């Protein structure tokens, strides 16, 4: 305990150097936590998916539709408890740059299957009652200032929906109760979109709720078998697999962001180790004096290593704190569209802190060892 005081005082030796080093570590931790946050954001959908939901799409690829007649066949499959469907609308809101997800859904069943979509009973009823109504996520509402009662006009993007603009009335603003649903989307009635579609009865994907998560693979297979050798073959997967494939779209993010995080840590390691080495070199006489006074070399080792840890942890706290405060997709205004919401979780912050401690430890190791192995007489002679 009394030694702790010594370590603190020693760190105050060169306030500027301590500050610069701590700041370097802070930056490293900040970047690390941010990168992890982005990565977690991309994986959040898969992570938050429900084990009792499976998704059916055309086997050719997601961009092809299935006829609505598939619904009854799927309902007949043993293990399927409930069913809903949705289409990607792909409309344009004022400017193609204003990109956000728009889904035409079978409203009543969709809200049943996704209890994560949180609406007040009034809003929910208002939406169900209004054929041209829509609900928007609270994140989307914040971005564009949507309020209940507002009109949203979308230009058609996908030719199948004709050429006339679609007008919707906001009937509710939903919160996302889990990461399987994001709060940057807009949902309206599939019936309404289908009425105006050039080709009717086209469905983008089905969402099924199954009775037993352990049987998901078997049920998926059973669904797909219903449509083998028909013109509209399907591929059914768990929601998790479906979400994971979206995350993989951007490329091997794990590798990319992981490598960058690695580079960040290594760079900071160099900086921190450098500082520790310099700091120790300037103190050889002092260390020799303490050894003369009778401080064992082991204690000297802990002093130096401890100082390194202290400065690093200081930086770690600063960096993690800043990351938690600043790094939030919504706050930075870049979420929406295909970039999922992200923010620094407590776990990321703690990992960042652990990293800073690790940096302090490794960076201090060599200088501390050298300091403890110093030959007293050599060090004393160096000055005179």
């Amino acid at each position, binding site marked *: 305990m*009394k*030694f702790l005081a010594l370590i603190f005082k020693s760190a105050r*030796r060169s306030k500027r150097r301590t500050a610069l080093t701590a700041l370097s570590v802070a930056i490293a931790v900040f970047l690390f936590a941010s990168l992890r946050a982005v990565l977690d954001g991309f994986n959040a959908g898969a992570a938050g998916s429900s084990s009792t939901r499976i998704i059916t799409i055309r086997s050719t690829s997601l961009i092809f539709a299935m006829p609505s007649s598939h619904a009854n066949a799927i309902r007949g499959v043993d293990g399927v408890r409930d069913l809903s469907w949705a289409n990607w609308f792909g409309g344009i809101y004022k400017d193609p740059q204003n990109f956000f997800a728009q889904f035409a859904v079978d409203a009543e069943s969709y809200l049943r299957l996704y209890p994560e979509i949180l609406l007040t009973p009034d809003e929910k009823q208002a939406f169900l009652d209004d054929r041209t109504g829509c609900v928007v996520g609270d994140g989307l509402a914040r971005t564009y200032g949507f309020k209940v009662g507002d009109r949203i006009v979308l230009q058609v993007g996908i030719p199948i929906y004709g050429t006339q603009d679609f007008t919707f009335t906001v009937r509710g603003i939903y919160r996302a109760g889990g990461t399987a649903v994001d709060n940057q989307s807009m949902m309206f009635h599939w019936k309404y979109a289908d009425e105006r579609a050039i080709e009717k009865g086209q469905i983008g994907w089905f969402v099924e709720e199954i009775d037993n998560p352990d049987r998901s693979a078997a049920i998926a297979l059973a669904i797909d078998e219903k449509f083998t050798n028909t013109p509209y073959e399907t591929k059914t997967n768990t929601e998790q697999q479906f979400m994971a494939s979206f995350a993989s779209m951007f490329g091997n993010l794990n590798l990319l962001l992981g490598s960058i995080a690695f580079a960040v840590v290594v760079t900071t390691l160099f900086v921190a180790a450098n500082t520790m080495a310099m700091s120790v070199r300037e103190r050889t006489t002092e260390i020799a004096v*303490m*050894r*003369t*006074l*009778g401080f064992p*070399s082991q204690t000297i080792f802990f002093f130096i290593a401890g100082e390194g840890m202290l400065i690093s942890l200081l930086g770690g706290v600063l960096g993690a704190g800043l990351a938690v405060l600043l790094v939030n997709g919504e706050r930075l205004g870049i979420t929406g569209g295909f970039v999922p919401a992200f923010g620094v979780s407590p776990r990321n912050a703690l990992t960042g802190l652990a990293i800073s401690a690790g940096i302090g430890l490794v960076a201090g190791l060599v200088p501390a060892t050298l300091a403890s192995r110093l030959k007293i007489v050599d060090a004393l002679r160096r000055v*005179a």
Partner: protein
Amino acid sequence: MLIELRDVTKMYKRDTLEVSVLDRVTMSVDEGQFLALMGPSGSGKSTLLNLLAGIDQPTSGSIRIAGAEIAGLSERQLAGWRAQHVGFIFQLYNLIPVLTAFENVELPLLLTSLSKKQRRDHVMTALDIVGLHDRSGHYPRQLSGGQEQRVAIARAIVTDPTLLLADEPTGDLDAKSGQDILTLLQRLNTEFRKTIIMVTHDPHAAERATRVLHLEKGTFVAA
């Protein structure tokens, strides 16, 4: 006899050349003596002091202090021995700049199991003896050379060590301050019965001691 050296030799290796700094030195010191070690530069006097302080090991020979043989002890054992038995005073004071005078003097006590209050008492007593009671909160940069050396002396005596070793204690001070330091050392010797061994090349400083030994090229010679 407090200190007994027998056939102590110290060799250094410079590349392939072996240089002998101390050549079979034998000497004994009684308790309560104030011994001055003199000699030209390169005579080995500082080396001898380092050996007595336990911060260096002889190549061969025996060093017995207060009944214990310290030649051949491990680094760890020596550290513990030093903490108990030695108070070292350097030419360049070597105070720790980030610590106050009080904290500098307290440093050796951190190796003991004394309580905070006990440590405080010892420190203030030591500072009283050297006459720096009211500067205990000052940092080394706020003190003059002479005052720094006095703090260093306080640090050396705070553990009440068996012997005090001083390496050119006045070498970096002006004449007046130097005189003050020597007077203090004398007082520690006569009033507090401390055994002091002082290395110096200044004959005036040596005059203050009760016994003088001359070293030349690693062996004792007549004055």
